[in-house]
């Protein structure tokens, strides 16, 4: 299934780069818009407007740099790598970015967006993790990426991904047990 999906991606990339067929690129956008927007939505603690802006920037960067895609990894991994860079670039440009500010901003986002109690629980749980731990857990459990793929996306050694995954898992399990998640 995944191999077929990657074959489709390569077919559309070839059509776009060799024939200049923009419709082929539109198919790639259509296929990946949901996972990429969801990835940003989770990292921004549910800020739909910011997520869409970041997702648009990701696809524009993919469009401009698609000639540098060498098919050494899946298109999906390559796209997530751009998304990861876009997110961390946007974080770096925000001045005076501290954990406290993040929580204040997140609470503001949460009040601006109509969330269900379940979603709030989810974002509250994620807030107990560092941004790197959040990224690894989201990519692994929600986007079904392997540790090797996550290492490529985050451009770090696989050992570092394992450490983030282990620490994130422990923190999240502590929180879920404390909140009695299994009893819900």
């Amino acid at each position, binding site marked *: 299934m995944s191999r077929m999906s990657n074959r489709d991606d390569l077919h559309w990339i070839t059509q776009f780069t060799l024939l200049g067929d923009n419709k082929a690129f539109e198919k790639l956008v259509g296929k990946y818009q*949901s996972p990429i927007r969801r990835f940003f939505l989770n990292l921004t603690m549910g800020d739909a407007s910011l997520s869409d802006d970041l*997702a648009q920037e990701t696809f524009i*960067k993919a*469009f401009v740099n698609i000639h540098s895609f060498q098919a050494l990894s899946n298109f999906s991994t390559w796209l997530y790598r*751009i998304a990861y860079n876009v997110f961390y670039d946007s974080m770096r440009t925000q001045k005076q970015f501290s954990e406290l500010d993040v929580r204040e901003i997140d609470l503001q986002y949460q009040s601006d967006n109509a969330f269900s109690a379940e979603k709030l629980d989810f974002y509250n749980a994620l807030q107990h993790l560092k941004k790197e731990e959040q990224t690894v857990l989201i990519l692994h*459990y929600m986007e079904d990426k392997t540790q090797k793929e996550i290492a490529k996306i985050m451009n770090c050694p696989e050992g570092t991904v394992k450490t983030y995954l282990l620490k994130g*898992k422990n923190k999240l399990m502590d929180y879920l047990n404390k909140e009695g998640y299994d009893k819900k």
Partner: protein
Amino acid sequence: MTKNEQTEEKLNEFFKTHKTEIPDNGFSLKVMRRLPTEKDHSWIVWLIGAAGISFLLYFYIHNGILLNFIENLLVMHFDTLLISIAVFPIVCGIVMLLWGKKEKTFFG
């Protein structure tokens, strides 16, 4: 079931219950409208090339160099002729190779 397996199951369940598919709702169209239009500047290269060739042809014909070259072509050594023909593609090849290296970005 080991504790590790229980943790994995719990986390899988936690994330899967919060996994939602986001409907497109015109997002793809918005992206396609915002894509930069690539301007093709290759015509400048062709224009400069054509102007250069025209100038050289005029210069060679006007000064009799072209006629002289054609006359000498028959008596010219084969290796000299081969080198003079091969110089242009070799230089172009090196330029294209260097250009290609410059174009590669960290996204690959």
